[in-house]
């Protein structure tokens, strides 16, 4: 099952030859206790002694990377795995497309690469911090297990990024790796780098929306980095993508199950009042979508960005599935973006390299639209008249060219006053928490699900739905 170059015996399972690299091993072994301390302080609360049916990566072979067993989270083995792709790598985009990829960091791009890696790395522990209390109000053991699976894998993704920092960025890299454990989600003094990762994630509606929308940004960022000319980054992120897919599954199906349940409750109630039946009403679901989708749009960066242009031009970061494109230089061509000028929206053509963030955002938006169509099918199948939608990508933005203006969910430019007056109808507001927390009571009995969510179609890894995914005794 394990390939010969995978070392599972040491403290840190890996296929990066850790045992032959004393400098790297020393760095990682120094970092390990700090990481565990962080996990104990900031990871999931109160479930350290509970065996969880977790998937662990023990091999990078197709199909072999998913090994399932009950594990206590602190004993989870956070390893370092690179995609073992044997083909000779090349730079996939930008001015040097087609030239051999870098197996070491080129000095010229060192700072940019470090920044890209640190920004990506910072999101991994952030989401664990955001979700640390959710175990106490889990709607089922199945969902509790999924939460923890997501958490340990975000931890492993942090390891993957720290490996890159330690291996390729010397002392600066080690300092940055330490800083990753010092910043804290939502802490005004030591906030995480990106806005969405400082937003509270107090309940499972937000958790599912986060894994649906925010982790999906992660997928696209990782996919773009998997096109990097810096080969170790490309191969690391390639492998992370396989795990990220599970997080997206948790989010997308989680929201789908809530929608399905709400449609049932809508039908059940003589006034169609979901709340009267203790469920989550569609207005609230829509506002949750509006909130997390738009915060996640921010993560792609500015619509018109010289950084994005530089990263692409230098081959550090490609487009989603760069191999689908024929022109990997993208030096000509423009991209049309609506911008606000003189109080109106007008279209502006910008060089496509400068619009690379927007190009990636397009792929993301299309993916989200697909999920929305699926949820609306669920509503249709349940006989509900309700339909959900994505707001305009200009709505509720905190980064980029729209951040200084206000738009309604349809994308129309409106006044600050009009926005403030309607905000409570459009995005999550603190009062929503009170209701959601009132209906979210823990449900730890195998096979049982909280009233506000439907059961999944099937269990995990062929196990039945009433399997004891987390052993609570």
């Amino acid at each position, binding site marked *: 099952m394990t390939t010969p170059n995978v070392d599972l015996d040491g403290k840190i399972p890996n296929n990066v030859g850790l045992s032959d690299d004393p400098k790297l091993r020393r760095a990682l072994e120094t970092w390990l206790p700090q990481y565990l301390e962080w996990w104990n302080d900031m990871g999931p609360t109160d479930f350290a002694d509970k065996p969880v049916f977790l998937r662990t990566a023990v091999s990078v072979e197709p199909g072999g990377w998913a090994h399932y067993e009950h594990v206590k989270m602190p004993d989870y083995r956070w390893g370092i795995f690179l995609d073992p792709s044997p083909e000779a790598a090349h730079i996939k985009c930008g001015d040097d497309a087609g030239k051999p990829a870098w197996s070491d960091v080129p000095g010229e791009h060192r*700072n940019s690469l470090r920044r890209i890696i640190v920004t990506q790395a910072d999101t991994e522990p952030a989401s664990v911090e955001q979700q640390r209390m959710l175990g106490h109000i889990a709607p089922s053991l199945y969902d509790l297990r999924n939460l923890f699976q997501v958490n340990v894998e975000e931890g492993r993704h942090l390891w993957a990024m720290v490996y890159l920092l330690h291996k390729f960025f010397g002392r600066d890299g080690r300092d940055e790796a330490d800083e990753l454990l010092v910043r804290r989600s939502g802490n005004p003094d030591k*906030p995480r780098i990106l806005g969405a990762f400082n937003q509270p994630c107090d309940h499972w509606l937000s958790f599912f929306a986060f894994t649906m929308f925010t982790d999906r940004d992660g997928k696209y960022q990782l996919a773009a980095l998997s096109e990097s000319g810096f080969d170790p980054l490309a191969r690391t992120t390639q492998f992370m993508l396989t795990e990220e897919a599970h997080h997206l599954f948790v989010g997308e199906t989680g929201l789908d199950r809530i929608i399905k349940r709400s449609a049932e409750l809508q039908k059940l109630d003589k006034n169609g009042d979901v709340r009267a039946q203790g469920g989550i009403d569609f207005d609230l679901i829509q506002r949750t979508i509006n909130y997390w989708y738009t915060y996640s749009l921010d993560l792609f960066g500015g619509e018109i960005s*010289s950084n994005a242009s530089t990263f692409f031009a230098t081959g550090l970061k490609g487009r989603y599935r760069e191999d689908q494109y024929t022109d990997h230089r993208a030096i000509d061509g423009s991209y049309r973006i609506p911008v606000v000028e003189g109080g109106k929206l007008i279209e502006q053509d910008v060089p496509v390299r*400068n619009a690379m963030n927007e190009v990636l955002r397009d792929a993301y938006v299309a993916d989200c639209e697909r999920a929305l169509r699926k949820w609306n099918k669920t509503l249709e199948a349940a006989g509900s008249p309700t339909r959900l939608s994505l707001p305009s990508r200009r709505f509720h933005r905190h980064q980029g060219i729209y951040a200084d203006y206000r738009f309604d969910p349809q994308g129309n430019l409106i006044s600050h006053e009009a926005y403030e007056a309607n905000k409570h109808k459009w995005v999550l507001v603190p009062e929503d928490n009170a209701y959601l927390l009132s209906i979210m009571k823990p449900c730890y009995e195998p096979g049982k699900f909280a009233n506000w969510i439907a059961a999944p179609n099937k269990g995990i890894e062929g196990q039945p739905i009433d399997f004891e995914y987390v052993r609570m005794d």
Partner: protein
Amino acid sequence: MHDVAKGAVLAPVEFEVEPTRYRHWKVSYDGAIARVAMDVDPAAPLRDGYELKLNSYDLGVDVELADIVRRMRFEHPEVRVVVLTSGNDRVFCAGANIHMLGSSTHAWKVNFCKFTNETRCEIEDATASSHQVWIAACNGTTAGGGYELAMACQEIYLQDDGNSAVSLPEVPLLGVLPGTGGLTRLVDKRKVRRDRADVFSTTAEGIRGKKAVQWGLVDAIFPRSKFDEKVLERAKGLIASASAGLPPGERKGVVLSPLAPEVGPTSRRYRHVSLEWDETTRVARLTMTGPSAADVALVERGGEAMRQACVDGSAALWSLQAWRELDDALLHLRVNHMQVGLVIVRAVPAQGCDLQQVLAHDAALAKARDHWFAREVLLHTGRVLRRLDNTSRSFFAFGDQGTAFGGCMLELALAADRFYMLDDADAPVKVALSELEEGALPMHNGRTRLQTRLIGAPAQLETLVGRRDPLDAEAADDAGLVTVRLDPIDWDDDTRIAMEERASLSPDALTGMEQNLRFPGPETPDSKIYARLSAWQNWIFIRPNATGPAGALTLYGRPERPQFDWQRV
């Protein structure tokens, strides 16, 4: 990209502004502490074609800042500590707007950098001379010109939030230098070790947190939640030391009223100053009229009387008004009349007056200078003269019939590149020295214009100390004050030829030559900043590696990457 800043074809830049018209700054006062918050309106650039994102600045933003610094001294003498901070949540200041620089003419960039440098030197001058200590509260990203602005302050405090860094990304990102004294202040003022300064100045993302403190890039870091409180604590702590040795006088401000010049197609006339230009000959005439007997009488009544006369507007006081007018005229000359290469400077007496009034004025002002307001008036005169020293035009002072270069107005002749003086036995033209010329109006090199001029003749300089009698052309020539002494028969021809000859020479070579010749003697951080700006930055600005078709500054924000010519020059 639009062409911006082609001075001549666009509306002229105005340098006068007042607080109700600020677009980019919010100034608030609380007793001895003032808070100056940069909050740049992205949609209000001085020229079309770029947006002032992320608290980046252009000349328009800096014109307001200069106004703030100046008004603070005159209108708010109660202020001891000025907290310079940002009204933007994430960015303290991102520096000069790169798109503005990338799309500007060379001349515009140079003028822009010069003006911003002068503003930063004014901040330092306020801290050093006016008991107004500026401290920077960097509550977000502090990049490039933003960090240079912070370095103009006496102390720098940086928010410690894991993100906010100070940086000078000009070299690695733009292929140019920090243009407002950043490199000089880094090693000369903040005494950052030069090897660390090398690392810092090539690290685009900058340095944050503890390391920024260890390297001396900032004075302290405070967490975000305590930042405002800690900065305020420090500001309060500075009041006492900033108040030590405070000059006397009632600390109530005066109002700097609008200059309201009369603007014609080829002239700009103020009360005491006039500027006329001729675009064909490329010669301008700058004339300053001296104080009247009433002006002198006011100064003779002392600092408090001067202050009271200005409470509702400074126009009453020649000593302030005339120099404010000259300042404005110089700025217009620099930015709005780029073709003018030679400026003929004349100092004329007020109606019915002669040299005696300006000498009496200087004597009275020197006597009044213990009072804070009189002192500010003098400091202001010094700054305007330094602006003249730094103006890249040829200045010829003409001491012909009807002129009276005396005291502070003689400084105009001493600041000029040449002083032509008429030697007319029938109606002798005279000049005279005053006590103000013996240290009250220093150049950027820290010396007087007389010391600078007579650097090779210390004995001659010695004979001039305390000399107050009017000097005719011969005596002035003997004293080393005159470049060319002409009798009435030769005056017209010789001055005409001198002007035509000057106007025919390469303007670039003249700028370089004049800047080299104007500042002999020792260096100060200020003089280094200006010298290096003109020598290095202005050279780099014009090199293909920065501004050629594939230069780093040209291509910043564009999809192409810069291509460098690797040859070291």
